[in-house]
């Protein structure tokens, strides 16, 4: 049965995966990938879908499901790939049993991220096939294709999308679901036990598979050529860049287009295409991954244009405007930007407990000549902005505790870490153990709002377990405090912070109050039920 549905890119991916017969989705929330797992949680009860503690545990659990013969999807934002990388790269060495698709959602222009790393590098690094849909329809269609490819090649497949596809809605034709795989654990231990002797054989097998991967990309239904008459210029349009190219009507302008949505880059097709035109523009969202490789294929003499030579901006998301300019399309702006418009940065919600935490921290920090507050990833990163201007760093998940430790080791005092509850279980616990074992002179604030708030209020892995976790890791009971971040408790909270800064060792203070967004949502639901 075929029907049409209006779906976000993320939802199209989710539904495609469900219809491809996945038995599990494994993920940690991260913009712009979060809605994939949320959609599966609300629409496919037959699929295991509980949130994981971090991207590495997600990747490994998915590999376990694949080992058992069933299909599994792993989803994460691009920086999550760094966390999952150990398991991800080695999953290409073990290979897979049931189909395994890793979905990485990149964020060019850093709408909600701290860098714009391109996950296609990871796919190339691991030597596995990469798929990059250009539309919501392709995102849906590619899921069954990706799982078949994974099982056929016996390798994980990386699917890479960008924010603009993940968070854009369009009509999608959906088809009949296929059944889940039966339980069928792999018996080939030499594939899975990566002792050096086995790993060498497995790596050799991965290298031997590369020509098959090339062939699959050369004949992929997702890599297509559109030829214009007497074209002298060509465009290689990767993933979503294809849309920005087509929006500018290249064929009417005598420009041919090679759409690339499956990698490794189809070298033979690209060389033939390059020979048929004088100039090639490489349009790709993210980093110049394809451009660098195509430059190597065609040689330094070939007239190649793209992000590296300035034809397209070196960084930031592509737009139909910048791609148009690179194709020689004249801009037609009618109105200049209004000079009365000022920036409106996001801010912590009114009534949010993090606000009270920063009020208290700022008050105490002001009493010291050089207090340093190391922040982390989450809503509370907004404490860097006015009116708080409270944090001195924010680097990656968990870095607040470990950076505070390193700075304290170097002599910084007070060295204070601020980390959220979900970020703490994601990557903060191991760093806290380091600090405890080394008796580092730091004060750790675990600002617990009982949810993963920044991404919209998903379950937080450590809820109701933080005191036990801290004590278990070795925090001394007299230096572990739980407080309620409310203005009326300001006196008590500031005094505890003062005392614990003066304690020469690890202290943990847990301000705990539910996120105002999830609280309001629950109250609304309750009221709706009562009506």
């Amino acid at each position, binding site marked *: 049965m075929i029907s049409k549905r209006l779906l976000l890119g993320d939802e199209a991916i989710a539904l495609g995966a469900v219809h491809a017969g996945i038995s599990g989705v494994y993920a940690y929330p991260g913009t712009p990938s979060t809605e994939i797992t949320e959609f599966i949680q609300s629409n496919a009860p037959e699929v295991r879908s509980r949130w994981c503690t971090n991207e590495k545990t997600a990747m490994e659990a998915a590999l376990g499901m694949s080992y058992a013969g069933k299909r599994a999807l792993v989803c994460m934002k691009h920086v999550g790939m760094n966390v999952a990388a150990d398991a991800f790269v080695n999953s290409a060495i073990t290979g897979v049993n049931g189909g395994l698709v890793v979905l990485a959602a990149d964020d060019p222009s850093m*709408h909600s991220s701290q860098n714009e790393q391109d996950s296609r590098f990871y796919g190339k690094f691991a030597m596995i096939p990469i798929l990059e849909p250009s539309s919501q329809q392709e995102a849906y269609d590619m899921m069954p294709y990706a799982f078949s490819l994974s099982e056929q090649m016996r390798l994980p497949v990386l699917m890479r999308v960008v924010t603009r596809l993940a*968070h854009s809605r*369009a009509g999608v034709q959906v088809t009949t679901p296929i059944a889940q795989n039966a339980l069928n654990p792999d018996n080939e231990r030499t594939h899975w036990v990566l002792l050096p002797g086995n790993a060498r054989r497995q790596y050799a097998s991965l290298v031997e598979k590369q020509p098959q991967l090339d062939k699959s990309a050369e004949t992929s239904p997702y890599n297509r050529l559109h030829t214009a008459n007497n074209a002298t210029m060509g465009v290689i349009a990767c993933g979503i860049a294809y*849309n*920005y190219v087509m929006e500018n009507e290249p064929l009417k302008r005598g420009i041919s287009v090679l759409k690339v949505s499956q990698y490794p880059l189809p070298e033979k097709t690209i060389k033939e295409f390059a020979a048929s035109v004088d100039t090639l523009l490489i349009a790709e969202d993210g980093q110049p991954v394809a451009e660098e490789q195509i430059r190597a294929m065609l040689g330094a003499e070939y007239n190649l244009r793209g992000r590296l030579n300035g034809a397209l901006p070196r960084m930031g998301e592509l737009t139909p405007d910048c791609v148009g300019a690179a194709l020689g399309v004249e801009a037609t702006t*009618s109105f200049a930007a209004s000079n009365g418009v000022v920036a*409106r940065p996001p*801010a912590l919600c009114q009534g949010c407990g993090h606000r009270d935490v920063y009020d208290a921290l700022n008050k105490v920090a002001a009493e010291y000549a050089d207090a340093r507050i190391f922040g982390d990833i989450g809503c509370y990163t907004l404490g860097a902005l006015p009116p708080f201007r409270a944090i001195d760093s924010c680097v990656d998940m968990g870095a607040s505790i470990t950076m505070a430790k390193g700075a304290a080791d170097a002599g910084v005092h007070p060295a204070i870490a601020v980390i959220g509850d979900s970020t703490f279980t994601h990557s903060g616990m191991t760093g806290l153990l380091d600090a405890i074992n080394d008796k580092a002179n730091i004060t750790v604030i675990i600002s617990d709002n009982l949810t993963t708030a920044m991404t919209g209020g998903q379950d937080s892995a450590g809820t109701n377990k933080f005191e036990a976790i801290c004590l278990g890791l070795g925090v001394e009971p007299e230096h572990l405090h739980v407080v309620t971040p409310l203005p009326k408790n300001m006196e008590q909270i500031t005094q505890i912070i003062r005392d614990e800064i003066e304690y020469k060792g690890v202290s943990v203070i847990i301000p705990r109050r539910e996120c105002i967004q999830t609280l309001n949502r629950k109250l609304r639901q309750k009221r709706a039920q009562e009506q």
Partner: protein
Amino acid sequence: MKKDIILSGVGGQGILTIATIIGDAAAEAGINLKQAEVHGMSQRGGDVQSNLRLSTEEIYSDLIKQGAADMIISMEPMEALRYLPYLSSEGVIVTSSHPFKNIPNYPDEEALYAALNSLCSVSILPIEDLAKQNNIPKCANVLLLGMAAKYLEILSPEQLRESIKRVFSSKGEKVVEMNCQAFDIGLNSVK
């Protein structure tokens, strides 16, 4: 036929609900649609926008080109002006006149109104006051959609009203009724 629309406002003002209603109506009518949304950090009180593209032809880009938008529909007057470079020469602005001041350096309101009124096709109304006066304070966004319905062309007011009924049906009859009322007030307020 095509309509490229920029929806703008401040996180939490309900622009995605407007997008949902138009999207549902378009899907029902068999019109192609692409709608790029903002999720994540900006939703915490920052400026938000959605690019909504409707067409009887195939739509490629999820983003609207500069100088190509047929409409800007905004829940906030300064946010309407933020996207001016995207408006086409014949484009229309439909906006709330009520400033949302969550920043210390919010510009002078009279200057904002002057900038808006200097443009040729602008519909500007105190939608929040109108919604409050009619005892439907939570429906200001749908009232704004009613104003915009006058210019949408590719979808009729009737098609949008039907979509409102579908979108809000799970929230009960009373909510549907209030939103239909808001829509009609908006629609009738534009000459």
